[in-house]
C-alpha cells in the first residue's frame, strides 16, 4: 500500500492545469478479472486479472489538448473510457468539474453526459448504417431533450454540420453513412460529439483509419472545434509525431501506468524515461538522409496479466538495475511540470 500513498501525494502537484481544471483522476485502476474454467474454480489459487489501468492520476485543464500515447495494450483506450464512466473503475476517483462522479448512478450521470462526449476510431463502425445523418447527429439532442421543436433540431444539426464543413448541410441531412467518404463520416462523428457543446471530449485514435492525405484536415478540424467551444480534449494516439504537433501535454503509458507526463515539447524533444526515449527512437523519420542511428530496444510489451515486478519496463530497459525489480518507481516531478516514473531520477 506504500506505493499507493506515494502516488496520491504526488497528485496534488500534478495540477499544472491552467485556467481551472475540468477533469482530475486519482489512483484510477481497472482490473478485468479473467474468467476461469470449472476445474480452475475448484482448485482456485490466486485470482488472475488483466491490469489494464493501474493507479493512474492526472488532471486536465480547461481548453487543454492532452494526448495519451503508448503501444497497444498500454491501457490508453481503457483510461479514455474510464474517465467518461463508459467502463466502471475497479478503484480510484474521477472528479469532473470538481465533482466526484465515481459513485454516481447512470441516472445522476445523464445531465453530466451533455458535457462529456467521445469520438471513436472507426467512422465506418461508429455510425449506425441504418440511420440518416440528421438522426445520427440529432440523437444526443433528443436523448437530452434539449430541442423543443423539430425545426430547432434541424436548425442545430445544420449549424453543426456547417461548423464541421460538411456543406451544404441540406444536401447531407437525409443521406446514409455509406454515401459519405471516410473523412466526411469522421466529420459527422465530430459534429455529433460537439452538438451538445461539451466541455470535455475523448477522441480515441480519431484519424488512424483515414487516408493519410486527409488526416491533417480532420485533426485540424478537431483542434479548431476544441478551441472554438473552449472544450478540453483527451486525444488518444499511438502516433507520437502527430501528438507532438497538436497536444499541449502528453502522457506516455506503458502496461497501464503513466511513465512520463509533461508538455509535448518536453516529452518528445527531451524525453527522460528510457521507455519514452526508446519509443521516440523507433519513430521513423520522413527523410531518407537521416538514417536511424540509435538502437531499437528488443522485446515486446509483456502481458498485463502478470506485469513485471517493480518497474514494469525493467525487462526491456537498457538501464535496469536491482532496485528496478523490487521497488516500483512513483511518478515524481523532476523538473517543473515534467513527471517521470523512473529510478534513474530518484
Amino acid at each position, binding site marked *: 500500500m506504500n506505493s499507493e500513498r506515494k502516488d496520491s501525494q504526488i497528485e496534488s502537484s500534478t495540477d499544472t492545469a491552467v485556467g481551472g481544471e475540468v477533469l482530475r483522476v486519482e489512483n484510477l485502476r481497472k482490473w478485468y478479472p479473467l474468467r476461469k474454467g470449472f476445474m480452475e474454480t475448484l482448485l482456485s489459487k490466486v485470482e488472475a486479472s488483466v491490469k489494464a489501468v493501474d493507479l493512474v492520476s492526472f488532471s486536465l485543464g480547461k481548453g487543454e489538448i492532452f494526448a495519451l500515447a503508448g503501444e497497444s495494450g498500454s491501457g490508453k483506450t481503457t483510461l479514455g473510457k474510464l474517465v467518461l464512466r463508459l467502463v466502471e473503475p475497479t478503484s480510484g476517483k474521477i472528479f469532473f468539474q470538481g465533482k466526484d462522479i465515481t459513485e454516481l448512478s447512470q441516472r445522476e450521470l445523464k445531465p453530466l453526459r451533455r458535457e462529456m462526449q467521445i469520438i471513436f476510431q472507426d467512422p465506418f463502425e461508429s455510425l449506425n448504417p441504418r440511420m440518416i445523418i440528421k438522426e445520427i447527429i440529432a440523437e444526443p439532442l433528443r436523448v437530452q431533450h434539449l430541442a423543443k421543436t423539430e425545426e430547432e433540431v434541424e436548425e442545430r444539426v445544420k449549424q453543426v454540420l456547417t461548423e464541421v464543413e460538411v456543406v451544404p448541410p441540406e444536401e447531407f441531412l437525409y443521406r446514409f453513412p455509406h454515401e459519405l467518404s471516410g*473523412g466526411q463520416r469522421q466529420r459527422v462523428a465530430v459534429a455529433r460529439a460537439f452538438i451538445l457543446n461539451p466541455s470535455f471530449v475523448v477522441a480515441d485514435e480519431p484519424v488512424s483509419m483515414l487516408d*493519410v492525405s*486527409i*488526416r491533417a484536415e480532420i485533426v485540424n478540424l478537431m483542434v479548431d472545434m476544441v478551441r472554438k467551444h473552449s472544450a478540453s480534449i483527451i486525444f488518444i494516439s499511438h502516433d507520437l509525431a502527430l501528438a507532438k504537433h497538436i497536444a499541449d501535454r502528453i502522457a506516455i503509458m506503458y502496461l497501464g501506468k503513466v511513465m512520463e507526463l509533461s508538455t509535448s515539447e518536453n516529452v518528445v524533444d527531451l524525453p527522460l524515461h528510457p521507455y519514452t526515449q526508446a519509443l521516440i527512437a*523507433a519513430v*521513423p*523519420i*520522413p527523410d531518407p538522409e537521416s538514417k536511424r542511428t540509435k538502437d531499437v530496444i528488443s522485446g515486446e510489451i509483456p502481458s498485463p496479466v502478470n506485469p513485471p515486478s517493480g518497474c514494469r519496463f525493467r525487462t526491456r530497459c537498457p538501464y535496469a538495475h536491482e532496485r528496478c525489480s523490487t521497488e516500483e518507481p512513483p511518478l515524481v516531478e523532476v523538473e517543473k511540470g515534467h513527471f517521470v516514473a523512473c529510478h534513474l531520477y530518484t
Partner: protein
Amino acid sequence: MNALNPVFKVGDQIGEAIKTHDPKVSNSDVKERVSKLLETVGIEPSRANNYPHEFSGGMRQRALIAMALASDPSLVVADEPGTALDVIVQAQILRLMRDLKDKLGLSMILISHDLSIIAETCEKVAIMYAGRIVEYGNAVSIFKDPKHPYTQGLIKAFPSINGPRVRMTSIPGQPPDLLNPPSGCRFNPRCPYVMDVCKRVEPMLEEHGERGHTVSCHLYH
C-alpha cells in the same frame, strides 16, 4: 496479423512453403530447414511447434518473413509489413528486413502508405495515385525535391517528430473514385496548380531534373 492459418503449427506452415516448391525433400530435411529459417528471422527454433496464437504480433510477422524466404527467392514483395505493429516492433521488423536483404542479396518491393517508413528503408520510390505512377526516382531525390503536386502534398501531410510544432497541412478533397476516375490527369480535382490542359490530356511519365527522376505532370512539359 491474420496471414497465418490459426489451426496449423507455425513450423508446419513454413514447411508447407518448402514442400510446395520442392516436393522431394524428406521430412527431416524440411524440419531442419524450418529451424534454420526461424533462426534467421530471430525466433527460437523450438517455437516451430507453437500455434500462431502463441506468438506475439512481432513474432508472427517474423514467421511470415521466414515463410517468404523458404523457397530462397530473389525478390520479396512486402505489403504493408509494419502497419499492424507498434512503432518499436515495427522498427525491429524493418531492421530485420533490411539486414536480410543485405545478407541474402534480395531485391524487395515495399508497399506502404507510410512515407517515413519508405524514407528509412528504400532506395527507389514510385508514388502512385489512382492506379498510376505519378513520380518515380531515387528516394533522396523524391523526398528532397518532390516534383509532382501530389507527392509534395503527401510529404507535407506527414508530421515529423523532429522540428518545431506546426499546424498540419493536408491535400484538399477526397481520394479518387476508381469506378469513375477524373479525365486527363487523375489528380486534377485536388491539384493546387490545375490548368486547362490537365482536365483534357493525361500527362506522360517523363524525366525531369535529376537523371532517372520521372514525373507525370503538365507543369514540367
